[in-house]
């Protein structure tokens, strides 16, 4: 039998390989890279992500004990260079499909500071997730009540993920966000900019000095004018338009380490403009 199987193998491997296989494979790899911001495209000499928990497994979100337990299982790498780790899991139920990646910072050398950031991210995200679950339950109820059938109901997708904007030995800049398929209105994003030298959260004031609002406002106003001249008409004018950044204005550091100010949708422009971003130059 084994001898014959060797002959059968010849049939098996003699099968023609389609030419498009290679093209398809390359494209799939590329798509997959683009899709996943967590494949680090940055010059991340000092950053490595560590997998928190292996396997896709199911955690009841409402049981905090389960959560606490899984957090304990996160293997923290000894290597000082590893700044990022994340908890990841998937949960699928009749109501909701969850794909959760909650990041955490490690190895900053200041455990209290780390703990503070990680607790904050964790609390915000778990709160959003339970809200999303509640909404899903309500939505399903309404769906059935208005004549929808159990079979037709599609679970709502909830995604928590993060985006790393900048990482080098001095600064770490990332955002954590939550989206769900029910409506884009439930999009939440939080930005974190950390000075790794001082272990402090960076503020616009700490970067641009006391006069930060004036410096930034002027550059944003100029850039809006420029964009309007380039036929980008989405920006509101007059009273509804841009006046000043807020005290706790959202920003991140881009790959070059420059500050990027970001506004929410509808904040200073119509929906079609999306979430406007402005790169701010350091003025000496």
């Amino acid at each position, binding site marked *: 039998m084994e001898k014959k199987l060797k002959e*059968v193998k*010849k*049939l*098996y491997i003699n099968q023609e*390989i389609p030419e498009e296989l290679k093209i398809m494979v390359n494209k799939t790899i590329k798509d*997959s890279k683009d899709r*996943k911001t967590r494949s680090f495209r940055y010059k991340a000499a000092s950053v490595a992500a560590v997998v928190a928990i292996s396997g896709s497994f199911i955690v009841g979100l409402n049981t905090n004990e389960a959560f606490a337990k899984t957090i304990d299982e996160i293997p923290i790498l000894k290597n000082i260079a590893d700044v990022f780790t994340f908890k990841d899991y998937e949960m699928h139920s009749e109501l909701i499909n969850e794909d959760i990646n909650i990041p955490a910072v490690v190895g900053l050398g200041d455990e209290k500071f780390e703990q503070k950031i990680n607790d904050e991210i964790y609390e915000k995200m778990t709160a959003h997730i339970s809200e999303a679950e509640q909404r899903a339950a309500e939505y399903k109820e309404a769906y059935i009540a208005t004549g929808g059938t159990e079979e037709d109901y599609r679970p709502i997708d909830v995604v928590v993920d993060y985006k790393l904007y900048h990482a080098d030995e001095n600064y770490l800049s990332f955002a954590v966000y939550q989206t769900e398929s029910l409506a884009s209105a439930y999009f939440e994003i939080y930005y974190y900019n950390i000075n790794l030298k001082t272990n402090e959260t960076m503020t616009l004031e700490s970067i641009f000095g006391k006069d930060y609002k004036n410096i930034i406002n002027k550059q944003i106003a100029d850039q809006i004018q420029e964009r309007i001249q380039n036929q980008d008409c989405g920006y509101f004018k007059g009273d509804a338009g841009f006046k000043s950044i807020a005290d706790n204005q959202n920003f991140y550091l881009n790959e070059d380490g420059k500050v990027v100010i970001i506004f929410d949708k509808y904040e200073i422009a119509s929906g079609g403009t999306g979430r406007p971003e402005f790169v701010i130059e350091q003025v000496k």
Partner: protein
Amino acid sequence: MSTYNYNKIVEYIETSQNDFYLLAYGYVKNREAALDIVQDSIYKALSSANKLRNIEYVKTWFYRILVNTSISYLRKNKRIILSDKVPEMVSPENKNLAEIYDLYDAIDKLDPKFKTIVMLRYFEDMKIDEIAKVLDCNINTTKSRLYASLGKLKSIIEGEG
């Protein structure tokens, strides 16, 4: 996941893509379906790249995804897959040609569980412990499943006379 692991997985996929196709084809015997399965497996692998802890296991890890994707494809599309033609034999000097084709067909008739083990062992030349990792079961179970597969093949062939 480190960039290192991710890149190694990509590298592995690029060098082994033909083997993936052949295995997928072995299950579905249909070119488009096999391409679909390979694509799906690559997506799954790369989006869960962070779950591969040790890059040394990339082969058995990827094959597990590939095997599972193939089997669930078969399950979902049971009735609609049309088999392509059996390829021409490479060695026409072989005297037992008919028997070889019979065996090739017999493998196709095996339950996917047994088919997997035969293909991995005899076509992919995997060792028992590697197969055990792919199937996520222990070595003894794998061994007995392999013998059972050979037994089943025999009875399929003999049954047809």
